[in-house]
């Protein structure tokens, strides 16, 4: 995130950073910045646990609620250790001659990082943990694609490899000084890194796994829309840490990132609800909160670049487009990407990445293009970045599923699917109300 800014918008940033004197010397700790990133880290963890977990769990049958919560929780635990062992190093290490593609293993187990090692104006231990929360939520987003029918052990094993082979390298490319950073791709908080990677891999997984029994006409409705709304609300609040924290400082950039994030979330919800009102004459709670997530995914890559009006437009565009693609995936392509990960995150993230090239311009209220870039050239860079990552994520996911499913069961038995994964996979039931 901040590295991207250095590469792409150095001039524009000069204005901002002028108010943060500590930045110049790099070596002194900023306690205000540190305070904010400590908080932001808590907020981003909160997005997954329990935010995303609830958001997803409310949308499935009551017999799969434990399973969805457990997927998110287990991913959070295992990915944390994976991030410590190798993920962080691959993403943010110094890859030497191979630095354009990965960061090497020199920082495994945080080797060389002590209490007083800094990363910019914050402790590197903190930067590590902040980034870890991103490495948690990204594979957790994919859960939405395969709920109600996947084998639990497959989820965990797949996620480990996915974080190491898809997520961490892409982080390096975009934020760690890799080839996309080099090109000048704008991705402030993870439109490409988080949402496109997760969205595309989700789609591939959904296709390979096959639909749930009963899809598309005979499914049971979301068992608890209120649970989904609680999760969505936590996602919204946590996203302040996600986008605002990506400034890695408590400054005007963080403030404006929070502002545009909020506006885009609201606009996304309004857009989605408006479409529902037109089509069905009723605005649903699940629709509104889905639109909100679409707005948030869309603003994410652009949240360090655009102004409030940019946020408004991105949110509206994200809400409408994601709704449309949701319909297409289900009805046209007949793919059971069960909780619409691709349509909401993949599409929203890509859309925001492209629109960032336009709304970054100062005339539209943004921070301005990097020196030497035009809207067209920046758009090209953005499209290149999205495309490269789409191909990589799809390819590796496909290979991973092919290979891993020869060792580990991929899909549960029909009986287990019918009975629900809570009992079948975890020996628990979600509700015992007598």
């Amino acid at each position: 995130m901040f590295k991207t800014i250095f590469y792409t918008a150095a001039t524009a940033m000069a204005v901002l950073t002028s108010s943060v004197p500590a930045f110049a010397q790099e070596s002194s700790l900023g306690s205000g910045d540190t305070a904010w990133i400590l908080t932001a880290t808590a907020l981003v963890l909160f997005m997954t646990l329990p935010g995303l977990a609830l958001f997803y769990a409310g949308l499935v049958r009551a017999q799969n609620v434990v399973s969805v919560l457990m997927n998110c929780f287990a991913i959070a635990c295992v990915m944390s250790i994976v991030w410590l062992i190798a993920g962080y190093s691959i993403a943010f290490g110094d890859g030497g001659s191979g630095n354009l593609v990965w960061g090497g293993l020199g920082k495994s187990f945080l080797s060389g990082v002590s209490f007083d090692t800094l990363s910019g104006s914050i402790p590197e231990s903190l930067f590590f943990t902040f980034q870890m929360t991103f490495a948690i939520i990204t594979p957790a987003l994919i859960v939405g694609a395969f709920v109600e029918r996947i084998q639990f052990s497959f989820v965990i094993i797949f996620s480990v490899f996915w974080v190491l082979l898809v997520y961490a390298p892409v982080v390096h490319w975009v934020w760690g000084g890799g080839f996309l950073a080099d090109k000048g791709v704008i991705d402030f908080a993870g439109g490409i890194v988080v949402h496109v990677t997760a969205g595309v891999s989700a789609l591939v997984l959904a296709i390979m796994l096959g639909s749930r029994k009963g899809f598309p006409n005979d499914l049971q409705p979301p068992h608890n829309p209120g649970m989904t709304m609680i999760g969505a609300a936590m996602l919204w609040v946590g996203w302040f840490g996600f986008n605002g924290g990506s400034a890695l400082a408590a400054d005007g950039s963080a403030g404006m990132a929070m502002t545009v994030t909020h506006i885009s979330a609201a606009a996304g919800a309004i857009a989605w609800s408006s479409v529902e009102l037109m089509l069905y004459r009723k605005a649903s709670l699940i629709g509104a909160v889905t639109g909100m997530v679409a707005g948030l995914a869309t603003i994410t890559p652009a949240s360090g670049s655009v102004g409030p009006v940019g946020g408004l437009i991105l949110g509206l565009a994200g809400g409408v487009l994601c709704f449309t693609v949701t319909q297409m995936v289900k009805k046209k392509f007949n793919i059971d990407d069960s909780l619409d990960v691709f349509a909401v995150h993949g599409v929203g993230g890509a859309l925001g990445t492209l629109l960032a090239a336009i709304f970054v311009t100062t005339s539209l209220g943004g921070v301005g293009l990097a020196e030497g870039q035009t809207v067209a050239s920046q758009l090209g860079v953005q499209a290149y970045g999205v495309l490269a990552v789409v191909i990589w994520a799809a390819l590796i996911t496909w290979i991973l599923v092919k290979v891993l499913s020869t060792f580990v069961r991929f899909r549960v038995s029909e009986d287990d699917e019918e009975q629900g994964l809570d009992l079948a996979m975890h020996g628990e039931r979600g509700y015992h109300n007598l």
Partner: protein
Amino acid sequence: MKMVMAIIKPFKLDEVRDALTDLGLQGLTATEVKGFGRQKGHTEIYRGAEYEVSYLPKVKVEVVIEDHLTDQVVETITKTANTDKIGDGKIFVTEVYSALRIRTGETGSDAI
């Protein structure tokens, strides 16, 4: 003895119970059920996908009475549970062979 089993709209339960109490009946048992009938369920739409909910929430009232009260009870329920709209429900009457109060061991009409 007879058991009168009525399937009614949930919000009518309180009125029905009050009316039966007024008749002097001392007890009944109610169960939440799902009704399928001429009155149709509804469709819910989530993220553009349609979900048919074909049943309607109903309440089943079961009350065991002495034979001679049957008509009166059926009539009372009919009157009270009626809203003149589809889905008001049904009343079925069946024969009860014997009744017993667990606490006291009383049987027959003393038991109900």
